């Protein structure tokens, strides 16, 4: 009896690896993008949320009305904002207004995005641990004259009080320049110092 329970609780390296890889296979798909291996979610709900979101964002981008996109990570229990990923967008108004084009190779742009992706992946080293269930939301900062689509609502900025901020690399397509900044909740001990 005792030996039976004991064998049940033992986990081998191979078994563990199988469990972990199964988790990633089921929840995420491994793809290569921007010359980097990346994990894409397989969750249908998240996928449809993101595709709805991006279609509206690209509409605003083409009209030059999008100023900022913010990804907010909140505690599920308290709705407290823990992390705020801020992507500021500067649009070359001449391109939008006059329809001229700019020259920049895809390769250059991809390399710049790659640099940001690397930084985002490495940010795990300094961001505080998220050890509770979290939810996320996306905010879009648009021009004041922009009409609100029916599927969108006005929101508060969901700011973090006294945040730590780290600016990451930026990339630009010569038409849109995107700056990345992450702000996160100060650790309590840091306040003492």
């Amino acid at each position, binding site marked *: 009896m005792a030996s039976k329970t004991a064998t049940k609780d033992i986990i081998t390296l191979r078994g563990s690896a199988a469990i972990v890889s199964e988790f990633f296979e089921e929840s995420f798909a491994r793809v290569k993008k921007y010359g980097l291996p990346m994990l894409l979610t397989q969750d249908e709900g998240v996928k449809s949320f993101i595709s709805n979101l991006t279609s509206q964002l690209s509409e605003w981008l083409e009209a030059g009305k999008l100023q900022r996109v913010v990804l907010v990570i909140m505690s599920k229990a308290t709705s407290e904002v823990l992390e705020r990923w801020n992507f500021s967008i500067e649009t070359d108004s001449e391109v939008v207004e006059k329809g001229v084009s700019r*020259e920049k190779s895809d390769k250059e742009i991809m390399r710049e995005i790659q640099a940001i992706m690397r930084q985002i992946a490495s940010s795990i080293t300094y961001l505080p641990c998220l050890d509770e269930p979290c939810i996320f939301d996306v905010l879009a900062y648009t021009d004041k004259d922009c009409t609100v689509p029916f599927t969108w609502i006005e929101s508060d900025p969901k700011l973090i009080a006294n945040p730590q901020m780290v600016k990451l*690399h930026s990339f630009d397509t010569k038409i849109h320049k995107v700056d990345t900044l992450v702000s996160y909740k100060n650790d309590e001990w840091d306040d003492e110092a």
Partner: protein
Amino acid sequence: MNSSASSNKTKSRCPLQEQLLQRRNSRENLDRFIPNRSAMDFDYAHYMLTDGKKGKENPAVGSSPSREAYRKQLAETFNMNRTRILAFKNKPPTPVEAIPNEFASAAHQVKSAKPRRHIPQTSERTLDAPDLVDDYYLNLLDWGSSNVLSIALGHTVYLWDASEGTTSELVTVDEENGPVTSVKWAPDGRHIAVGLNNSEVQLWDSTANRLLRTLRGGHRSRVGALDWNNHILTTGGMDGQIINNDVRVRAHIVETYQGHHQEVCGLKWSASGQQLASGGNDNLLHIWDRSMASSNAPTQWLHRLEEHTAAVKALAWCPFQGNLLASGGGGGDRCIKFWNTHTGACLNSVDTGSQVCALLWNKNERELLSSHGFTQNQLTLWKYPSMVKIAELTGHTSRVLFMAQSPDGCTVASAAGDETLRFWNVFGTPEVASKPAAKTSSEPFAHLNRIR
């Protein structure tokens, strides 16, 4: 293929630019994981730390709470002037196993599962309300959490128990003190505040039928608007004053809000108890922040909203979005407006064609009910946010001055200048509403469904 061709072209045509780009990129790749501090927005930071203090009279620079408040305020105005902040309405899915803790997501799930509901076009029940004072600026009807309706008719306050269908008299005030100008149940559904024409407010225990205390000395004229925030009773008077009364203490006046210069006729606390909306005959709508209130000096408003062109009486805080307020204007304005009370931005304005006397949100669906005056004297049910009319309920023969919602959120009582009190099953039948409510135990009003 295509990209390499174009990069070659660039190189041959404009070599200098290409080289610059190359160098910048190689540098970026060198400091791979080191944050780019040189690019941080120091101009903005400098402005936040210095210019702000010049603008503000407050000399307490060193104290961190005021600095913090200022910083927040600046950040908000900064955003308010330049941008709109939008969020996609269909929220991303939350982790699976846990209970949905946001009312919004719960309501959304409920909606998709529910079939189209029938809205009866006629009132379910009509009661006589003789001597109901036909005065737009008063608030004479309320429905308490213990399912008892209170209505002031002339000098008398009557209680109608909706579970039993029985009527009782709470009080008849003396001829020189009346008539009654406002009634409001405390959140416990047992205590009730009664505002009078002589500027006094009485607090009654409805179960013992006993007068507990009389609040005097605050207002100089009739008290037409009341609302509760826990043990704080907020009163609005014809003198334009708004007073927070702590009903537990002898010196009951704890805070005052000064901003209206004519009669205050609408008062509503937000569900969180953080923000108070007040409307007046001066066409003004104010948003006050509870945390900014102080006992020794009149409180400054958070927002003064001047878009209405007639008296603002109808106020309703949205039950599924904390910072959304609906307000309705009087006969000269006829508009329902929606506000983000965080930023003070007007989100939408709809001309209804007649005086807006009262507004109620449906607690189960994204719908708003408005009651109107001349010419139709109707109740209109709107889909939010499209503001498509779902139903128009007629029956009253004079303006529908007051509306109150049953504690289960399904039935609406309306009192009109035609001296009738009508009940409408406009927000769904109790059966339909109670089923999804039972599933989502976290819904704020779920426990109240058993009453009916």
